[in-house]
């Protein structure tokens, strides 16, 4: 497999991103190492080929943003909005992730080995997120589709205004958000969860998780309009 390296200490981010967009052939599977990321924002955004990009160090905002097809591994921590609006492929953060991790992701798998900050999985639209540690408050806010697996604890207002996304939580939650409720795990839930845990390389018993989903009382918020006195 072809390998190449970009050293961000000596070459520009834009040069690298442009190469990743325009310098690759359809279906290119090469392996790219990014050295000295030094917290730079927008590393490897908009990837559109099944390449592997390994970022050796910490990444700033939006690393792997809007990813399609590619596998991005961050050997460090990630700033706000890692893998935001991902469509497919995967992003794996070996360290911690800041706020809005996996926001609005339509597809693909985001794995965070450590903890994630506030609003993890906000407006999730079909992607899957597995967090090895805990997540901050307002995680899963307005999440529409997809799954969030939280192996640690969750902060306040988990799953506020949820649509159809499902959250699996192993630890404790400070508080559930409006319209989020605990539900019984079904066999389908155990199967989905086991698969996500195995894909993420996390070794937990699916039986130790609880399911959180929408009570759907906000779906027709003008329901009261039908009352007439």
């Amino acid at each position, binding site marked *: 497999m072809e390998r190449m390296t970009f050293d961000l200490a000596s070459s520009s981010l834009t040069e690298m991103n442009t190469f990743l967009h325009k310098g690759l052939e359809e279906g290119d599977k090469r392996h790219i190492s990014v050295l000295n990321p030094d917290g730079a924002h927008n590393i490897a955004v908009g990837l559109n080929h099944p390449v592997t990009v390994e970022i050796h160090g910490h990444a700033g*905002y939006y690393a792997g943003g809007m990813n399609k097809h590619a596998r991005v591994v961050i050997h460090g921590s990630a700033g706000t909005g890692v893998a935001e609006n991902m469509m497919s492929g995967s992003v794996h953060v070996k360290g911690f992730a800041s706020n809005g991790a996996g926001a*609005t992701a339509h597809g693909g798998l985001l794995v965070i080995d450590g903890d994630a900050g506030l609003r993890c999985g906000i407006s999730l639209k079909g992607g899957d997120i597995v967090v090895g540690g805990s997540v901050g408050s307002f995680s899963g806010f307005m999440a529409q589709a997809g799954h969030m697996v939280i192996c640690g604890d969750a902060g306040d207002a988990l799953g506020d205004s949820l649509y159809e996304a499902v959250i699996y939580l192993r630890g404790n939650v400070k508080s559930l958000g409006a319209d989020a409720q605990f539900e019984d795990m079904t066999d389908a839930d155990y199967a989905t969860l086991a698969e996500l845990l195995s894909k993420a390389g996390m070794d937990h018993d699916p039986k130790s998780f609880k399911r959180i989903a929408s009570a759907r009382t906000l779906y027709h918020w003008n329901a009261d309009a039908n009352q007439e006195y």
Partner: protein
Amino acid sequence: MDIKPVSFKRVSREESASFDRSTIDYIQNAAAHGLYEIRGMGAKRKLPHFDDLLFLAGSLSRYPLEGYREKCVTKTILGTRFAKKPIELDIPITIAGMSFGALSANVKESLGRAATAMGTTTTTGDGGMTPEERNSSKTLVYQCLPSRYGFNPDDVRRADAIEVVIGQGAKPGGGGMLLGQKVNPRVAKMRTLPQGVDQRSACRHPDWTGPDDLAIKIQELRELTDWEKPIYVKVGATRTFNDVKLAVHAGADVVVVDGMQGGTAATQTCYIEHIGIPTLAAVRQAVDALEDLNMKGQVQLIVSGGIRSGADVAKALAMGADAVAIGQGILFALGCNSETYIQDGKHISAIEGYDALGTQPGFCHHCHTGKCPVGVTTQDSVLEQRLQPDVGARRVKNYLKTLNMELTTIARACGKQNVHHLEREDLVALTLEAAAMARIPLAGTSWIPGHNGY
């Protein structure tokens, strides 16, 4: 003993100014339903507006140009600051972002065809990009909204410019709203929502919070598009001077300022009528902000909210806008609030449709219901047929053409060979309010209220 009520003829039929019939109706409606009113379109109250400005044309002190023979340039370039591929418009009049979901696919196609024929842009909206509008629009602006419904990198790559929407004039600080009756299977799929839910969209972006974050978000969009496409930032008019400055600091190529008259497909009436500032006040603040930063000409300004005529366009340009965007005017051109809709050349009455909504042509603001009597703002498979793309395209093209002719006629009368040469000195104000907001002297005087200590 009979007690006769005393009858005061004059006062017995005197309407209260504070509690007039519409206020009473509002209170009784609230009492009956326990829910605020939601509706479409823009503010209905009277506001200081471009009507309150007049042009001083050429005369002895300045030369006018011949109305038809002499050249008057309307070409407009947007996105010259950072983008490798700025947008080139033949006319400074663009079609504002209106969502698929609010509008039907037929309407989206009409808009694309009309805009392409006139050399201008259309804009997507909340709910993503449809093939109908991409294929019919030569130049298409793609909105990045807080909801991110249907937002995807392929469409970012397919777009000609990106517009990051912070807010809208009709509802600054409010999120989107699409009532269940408009969430049909196609709309639901595009937005990843269950069919028929009352869809609320977020009022803040999910992956950034303040202006410093916005700068990084804009940089992401630039990196993703290899710095080719202009990035617009759209704000609803409130603290416009500061907001425009922050948008420029965050790296916008183009700032879109939408005044409180701006239309919407659905929002709470209390937003529409009570939040934001009039377009007239907002344009002046926006231009001041650009001038303060020495960015006039580098960062372009698009103004929207209540633009109806070529005179409005000319006044916005003279105040310092580079272009305008139109929403409601486009809907009216398509036949909104008309008594009839056109099917294969024949006019057919739509009165029953208005009746069913409890309204009449000339008053309708019922876009939120999805039951548009003329097929403009609907997702109903029967109603949407009432707007045929051919008819819509022709009517919108005619409208844009008329606006442009009026604009150039006024510019020529003011002696300008280029509509962008219209300037504040060409304008006077008719009312004190307009003079103060636009900071343009009251006609026949040199008085600008609040200026020079007066």
